[in-house]
């Protein structure tokens, strides 16, 4: 039955391509059995599991450092879990910097179309 629903959902998607809003509504409005209309990877329980699993992996990566000696070369990089917090902070900084620069740099994608 579930397989049949899945196939029907696929057929429906093929008939009406590029309808993300419909997909969103399904995500937010359906519960339980009706998740089967979505691919298993994008069902809310799977996404919740991925967040939990991801969090555990991140925590484990930091915890492992207590057992593995990492070498710092320039001072700050010798602090505990340096690569974890440094990677996180610089990425947030780069996203914000890009966002800020975007205010000045972004234009409609038809900007050069008269060429």
């Amino acid at each position, binding site marked *: 039955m579930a397989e049949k629903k899945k196939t029907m959902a696929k057929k429906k998607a093929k008939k009406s391509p590029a309808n993300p809003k419909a997909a969103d509504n399904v995500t937010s409005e359906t519960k339980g059995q009706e998740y089967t209309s979505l691919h298993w990877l994008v069902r809310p329980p799977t996404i919740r599991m991925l967040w939990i699993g991801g969090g555990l992996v991140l925590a484990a990566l930091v915890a492992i450092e207590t057992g593995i000696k990492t070498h710092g070369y320039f001072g700050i*990089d010798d602090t505990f879990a340096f690569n974890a917090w440094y*990677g996180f902070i610089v990425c947030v900084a780069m*996203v914000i910097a890009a966002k800020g620069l975007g205010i000045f*740099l972004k234009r409609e994608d038809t900007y050069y179309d008269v060429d």
Partner: protein
Amino acid sequence: MTSIETFPPGLVLILGAIAVPFLRGTVQKAWILLLPLIVLGLVWQVPDGTVLTVSFLDYTLTPVKGDPLSRLFAIIFSIMAFAGGLYAINHCRVAEMTAAFIYAGSAIGVTFAGDLVTLFLFWEMMALGSTTVLLTGGGRAAVPAAMRYLLMHVMGGSLLLVGIVTHLDATGSIAFVAMKPESFATWMILLGFLINAAAPPLSAWLPDAYPEASPGGMVFLSAFTTKTAVYVLIRGFPGAEILIFVGLFMVFYGIIYALLENDMRRILAYSIVNQVGFMVTGIGIGTEMALNGAAAHAFTHIIYKALLLMSAGSVLLMTGKRKCTDLGGLFQSMPLTTICGIIGALSISSFPLTSGFISKSMIAQAAIDESLMIVWYLLAAASAGVFLHAGIKFPWFVFFQKDSGLRSPDPPLNMRLAMIFFAFMCIAVGVFPGPLYSLLPFSVDYVPYTAAHVLTMLQLLLFSGLAFFICLPLMKRTLTISLDADWLYRRLLPFVLERLVAVFKPVDQGIRAGFLDGINGLIARTYKYLGPEGVMARTIRAGSMVYWAVTLLVVYLVLNLV
């Protein structure tokens, strides 16, 4: 007579490419696949030292001179030509495929060029080949992009030629050996090289032109021009300190612009600049470790960037969409393309067990060895940024995010095989780095897989991933482009010229009109005096002449008496 062993392998590919349009059907396809493999075999056999010399005017050219660095680049160029040919064999036009192979052959020609004249000839053939790839494979938008691309490379080629001629004049030598940017000549040569490397401030030609090529065309374009520039920089300017600054700028330029970009292939184009930035930084550091790192990274980059572009090209070919705002959810119907795209994304991010891990880390290690603290911190930040802009952003927005409803299948078999081949190579080189290390120009004393290195890299990358998902609301895709230096010649220059024309047109017209009036007046006056009715043209009687002669004589006598 020249034997096949001494014949330039790049020229074999170029001549073989010219044969492609004359073949048909299966024979043509077989030749497209076989030719790069023949060239790979020839490249492999090129020994160290000068293999072929040719007399030209008063100079001795060295079209083939082998060493590990030349072979490394020529090997990956040949492999790339094979995989690119396999990928493009069904959807690229014959003219495009021919141009792509001429382009690849010219790049191989550059890598074996032992003198600057040979290098320049192949360098210019590369520009023509790549422009033809753009023109023959791209759509209508590709034509102006190809012209801008060509103009930029003609300018770069001109700078290179000025440098070579001045260098020849100053030193009397055309040998292509290590130089320092200390004279006008070497600066011109360096600038010519850097333009092809997409260095600032003229990086924009790359994201402007490459994404306008066909799916297969961009795979070819991504591999040769910038990596040939990396090769000539390694050979010509190792340890030139300015390259550290240039490289670091490129690294962050690529990240920021890729973060702002909506077009999936333009994201990857900015990412090329970012990755070449790592290599240029390594060349600037200039130690054996750094140069090995730059060369190894060029090798691995060609593979994983081609894989990423094959993946993006497959999406473009199958869906007809290229903007992240139109894509998403494709993992459901294009699983192989998704997996290969993810492997390419992990490789570019230097994930352990992928090719990027064993190459890029050598450049960072060189910075540590040379106590270049700020460089190392910036390279570490940039490594995190690569995962952000290419490692996650590309696969996330193309294959996952919101479901676009598109259900296009994976591409045809040949394209799938090309992707599988390069995905396999990404992992194989990452898991077994030994064979690549043995091809590098200097002996390698570096062990990438230590527990500490794997752990620190995983921390850096996965926490970057966390930052990506936390910052996702800030990265909402918009139907925009980002202004770049090309704005100067696509908008500002035409605007200034139009204003100048508007201001000077009346002045110019006034000057022309005034000059014309002056000329007309002169003609009128001349006509008045010299015309048929003019004073000077009047018939004068002989008596008048005698009268004036006597008058003058009298005046003369009077003056003489006085």
